[in-house]
Every structure is written in C-alpha cells, then in structure tokens.
C-alpha cells in the first residue's frame, strides 16, 4: 500500500541526540530498534499465523523497508508472561488465549476456505478476521475462547500496542515522540514548536 506522507521529512529519531531525548529514553528505544527479541514462546506454526495476522491488522506502507516488527514483541510479552494486570474470569489467561486463538483462527480458515490462514490471499484473511471479530465462527476451539472477546481484548490490543511503540509509527501520525528534558512551548490551536512535525495538506 502506498500512502501520501502527511509529515514529509519528519522523524522522531532525528531528535535522538537533541534535548528531546534523555539517556534513559535513548537506551529503551535503541534496544527496541536494534535488538528485537528472538522467538521464544510461540511455535513456528503459531508464529507464522501471528505474523500474517499482524500484517492485516496493521497495514504498513509498501515504500517502507523493512516493516516495523510486531510479532517479536508479542512473543516477548508472552515469554516473560508480562500481563496487563487483569484476567477476565472464565478465560484461560494471556498465554493460553494467544495459543488457542492462533490455532482457532487457522482452523477457521481451513474450515471456511479450505486452506491454512497463511496461504490465503489477503482479502480472504481479512474475511476470516472479520468472522472472528463478529463472533461468526465455527471452529470447535472457540467453545473455550469467546471469539469476539479474544479478538477485541487480546489480539487487537497487543498488536496495536507493539506497533505504536515504534518511532516509525510516531512519525506517520505526527506525534512529537519522546520529550524530556525538553517539552513544548506552543500549545494553542495550530501552534507547534520547531521540533515538531509540520503537516502538509
């Protein structure tokens, strides 16, 4: 997908060595960019389904190379079992939800379209994801994992969280990015500081 860039030339990373980024922020973001975690939690099969799902949930511009990695950070969250602080009663917990959910989505693809999820064309993959989102599912695995709840509360949340933690995601929406010790001065309507993104109509 090609897309018009509303903030041409803007890069939060370009502020890396300015007063907008303190040392601790540099350390954290540098590690995220330079050292994506290896796969530890998901099986190879689960991993390939997850990667395919991430590509449909977050459409990354084709002119971008390489894409922002998402799956490695979800794997890391599962491997370290870092929950968000709550678990819905009746659900099996974050790790099991992901494992069962990926397997159920793949089964759903095979039942509905006769092929593994990763082998479906993008439009068909979207069809499967919409079925899961709407609870219009027939794979038996959903009996223990409410499809809509999994899609909204686990799948979407984890994927968008990891994507919007990346400086390239910040750049494309015009977010100012890290800001400490230097914050902002101009706060009114249509006002921006020289270190902020300039929007092009």
């Amino acid at each position: 997908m090609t897309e018009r860039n509303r903030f041409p030339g803007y890069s939060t990373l370009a502020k890396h060595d300015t007063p907008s980024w303190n040392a601790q922020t540099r350390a954290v973001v540098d590690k995220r960019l330079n050292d994506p975690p290896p796969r530890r939690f998901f099986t190879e099969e689960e991993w390939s389904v997850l990667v395919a799902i991430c590509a449909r949930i977050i459409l990354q511009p084709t002119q971008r190379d390489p894409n922002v990695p998402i799956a490695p950070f979800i794997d890391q969250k599962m491997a370290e079992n870092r929950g968000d602080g709550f678990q819905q009663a009746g659900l099996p917990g974050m790790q099991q939800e992901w494992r069962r959910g990926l397997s159920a989505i793949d089964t759903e693809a095979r039942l509905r379209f006769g092929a593994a999820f990763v082998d479906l064309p993008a439009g068909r993959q979207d069809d499967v994801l919409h079925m899961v989102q709407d609870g219009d599912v027939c794979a038996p695995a959903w009996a223990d994992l409410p499809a809509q709840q999994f899609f909204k509360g686990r799948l979407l949340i984890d994927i968008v969280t990891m994507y919007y933690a990346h400086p390239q995601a910040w750049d494309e929406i015009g977010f100012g990015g890290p800001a400490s010790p230097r914050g902002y001065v101009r706060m009114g309507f249509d006002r921006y500081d020289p270190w902020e993104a300039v929007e092009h109509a």
Partner: protein
Amino acid sequence: MPEIVPPAPRGKDGRAPDVLRPGGWVPMRQYRDNDEVDFAIVGTGAGGGTLAARLAEAGFSVVAFDAGPWFRPLEEFASDELEQTKLYWTDNRIVAGDNPIELGHNNSGKAVGGSTVHFAMVALRFRPEWFKARTKLGYGADWPVSWQEMWRYYDEVEDALKIAGPVRFPWGPPRRRYPYRPHEVNAAGLVLAHGAEKLGIKWCPTPLATVSAPRGLSPPCVYRGFCVIGCSTNAKQSALVVWIPRALAAGAEIRDLAMVGRIELGPNGLVAGVHYHREGEWRFQRAKNVVVAGYAIETPRLLLNSACPQFPDGLANSNGLVGKYFMVQSNDAVWGTMDEEIRWYKGPPSLALTEHWNYTDTGKDFFGGYAYMSQGPLPIEFARTLASGRGLWGQALRDAMSNYIHMAGLKICGEVLPREHNRVELADATDEYGLRTARVVFGYCDNDNRLRRHAVLFMRDALAAAGARDIWESESTAHLNGSCRMGEDPATSVVNADGRSWDIPNLWVCDGSLFPTVGGVNPSLTIQALACRTADRIKAMAARGELDRPAASPARTAARAVEWS
C-alpha cells in the same frame, strides 16, 4: 523488554534515594524487626505516604512498606509508553461481574509513591453535599466527617502539593485561590472551553498537582505530556517527591520492594505486626498499630488474607463488609476530529474541565454527578481506544490514527453508586508469594448507566459545538474506591471516621477504600486530606491516652465499654 528498574531494595543501610538529585542519597532512620514501632503502614501512595509523613512529623515511630521499587524519576523514567508500564501493578487479578473492569495502567500503581507516580494530577475537592449524600441528596451513604472539617484538610493538601489552579474556582463555597497560578490551557483544553461556552456552562483550567513555577528542586512543568506514565522532571507533586521525602526527614523508614502478606493478630485481640517479604525471605515487623493503605483492592485483599482463628473471615470483617461496596468511576468519553491542529500530546492530559454536572441537580434522571475533562492520550493509549472501543484495524485504523494531531476528546469522571454486590474477594489462585490473589466483581446499575448516557449525550453536543466532526464514543473506568468503608455504625461500616477498625482498635485503613460514596471527581486529593485528618486524630487520641482503647461509636459505646473493661 529493556527495563530500567531497581534490581534490589534501595531503602536500606541507613539511606534512601534522593529522588530530587541524580544519584543522590539521603539518610534514613532504620528500625529492627524486633522494635515495636508505633505504626507499620502498608502502602506509600496517596494514603500511606501522606500518613507516614504526618505521623512521623508528629513524633511517632513509623515504618512504611511498599511492594514496588523506589524509582529515581530523573534517571529512570523514559518518554516511552511501553517502558513505563513498569509503574503499574500488573500482578494478575481476576475481573468478573456484568462489567468487568480493566486493571493496571490507570488505576493501580506498584512503586514507592503508589499510583500518584502515574496519576493525572487532577486535584479536585468533593462537592460539600457529597459528604452527606444520603441525607442531603437522597442516595448512597453519609460520610462520618463534615465538609467543613474536610475543607480545612483540603487547604492543607493543596498547599502541601502547591496545586496550580485558577484564582476563582467556579463551583462550590467560596475558597481561597490556589497556591500556584494555573497552567496555560492547551488547544485540547480550549476545545472543552469553547464547547462549554457555546452550551452556556462554566469551565475552568484544571487544578493540577504539577507546579507552574519552580518549587525547591521541582522545576515548573515543561508540558512534555507524559504525565500518566511518570514525570521525568519531578514537576509532578506525587507522594514520591512530596510526602516520602517529608516522611524521611521526620524519621520514618520506608521499605521498598517489601510485600506485606499477612497481618498478625496477637493473643490479646490486637494486631502485633506484619509479615513481609523482602530480599527473598519472609520477615516480621512488630508494631503497636498497623495501617493498611494498599488502595481498594490490595487493602481488602490483605485483610482477607490475614484471616485467623479469631477472625476466620478476615481481619476487621466480623460484619462481612470487607471488600464490599467497591466502586470505580465511569470514564466514558467522546472523541472528534477538529479542522485545527490540536496536538493533544502536549501538556498535562486534562488542562480544562467542567464540574457543571457535579453541582447542578436539575435536568438529571439519575443520582450523583460527573466532571468532564479535556484529553490527551499518547499514541498507544489512543490506538488501544480505537481498537477496543471501535474495533478498528487495517485501513480503518490507519485512517483514524492519521487524524491524531487533529483529535480532541472529553472524558468523564463519573460517580457510581455504592452497591454491596460490587466487591473484592479472594480468588483461588495464588501469586508469586503464595498469597491468594484478588477477584474483583463489578457491574454498573441502572442509575450508573443513566448518568453515563446523560454525560455522553451532553459531551457529544459540547464537542460538536466546539467544531468537532465524526464524533464517536468509548467507555472505560478509572480509580478504585470503597471496599472498607468508613461510617458511624459498626454494623454498616468497616472502620470509623478515623479509619480505625471497629473490630480491632489498633488496626487502621487509610486510602480510597474508606470512601462510602465516590463522587464525580478524581479521588487523590480527598484520600490525602483524609490521611492528614487521620494523622491529627491519632495525635489527639494519643495525647489523651485513647489509642489503647477501642473505637467509640454512638451505636455500641455502651456494650463495648463493658466488654473491654
């Protein structure tokens, strides 16, 4: 994930981190486990941190415990949403009920300073009538304290935190001006202002606990906008930078990374101290009094987990009310797209607000009130709102996120009614310490839903009047309150007005658990005001030799006098 987290306790060896100076230390008095300290306080947030400072300053020996680490904000807080999840209490808790609540990022802290380390700094007083909600407004329950008394303690806390707010606050009884001048209202706040003025209601710059001018080693707020994931400049006047240093200077000891697992009841029917886990082992601190200040989930959890033969259902729980009447606040929001660039990531997230519907009773089909405030979510939080609230993904999500710098939003802090059914109880699962985890049951009642609907419709009009288009809604909750409520009657409350247990006279509660009703404003200022009041009450009772006698209640003074003689 790469994390900048203290690997081991820092409050030890006679010193504590000086959070206001990079690499600095300050001396800290220390007690031995065998010392019978006057007060062991569990939790160091708005309740426990405040109380630790005020009791130490009154000359009591104090040890306060926190399960979380002792961060140095200047060196360890990054401008990064993922990294800063380290501030949240993310231990697993089960959520259930008709409207299971989300826990963690916006309601549960795990650090010295508690949730104030990542709170939104909104510093509002209760409406006076709320302290007598049952008598004056016909719903909920009366508080056992008067608004006039609370007003004095609000004065104290606003001064202690140097709240930055308007010269004239538009609602409620006349009051003095705020200690520091208000912050400039950003474009997101001006959207609220324009909408309010078009609809003919008042608004004002939000009173905030972040300084608008230098204060000691706190620089004025630089409007970096990452407030709710931790302030890296110390402009924010959290318990971590205000009350904890005061507590240390007055001789209190703070033990970080110290999880209290059980309160011990002695053979005399009084609590004898706390069992806590630190540096790989369980230890026992003796104390003449124990104060539980772990917020409205961990406080009842600790009392319930401290069950013993004399109190098989949990300490202070002879009437079965520990954990009951748990309340959140509804946090519904409306969002819209503006033609202007708003860039809501700049400045504290809620720089403007209206309390119109807290102070107006006409035109409502519900009990209670709500404030609403301007918004400034960072990218991850906003993307999560779009994903979970609207179910957007793929191209639809991209399109919605591409309007990020043109978005404006209004969100309520809405009152929910106290209901016994909403509760904190123990789950079957255990945590890393072998302690049973909490199960939180919550559901809105019809009244709560009418309030939410009223708010959303009104805010839709306000946002449209300010020029927003493509308006949509989201729902969530904020804050944790109730669950160990205070009252005048031992049959219908867990503690008295001083936070003192009816069952066990040297066991106290000091946090948001105390609230009999929750009101339509953020609770932190009221929690701190109550803590200051409790400290003064303890000081007065100690001077009269009353700390060794049980809490008096109008309802059972006579019966108890015989029992304890």
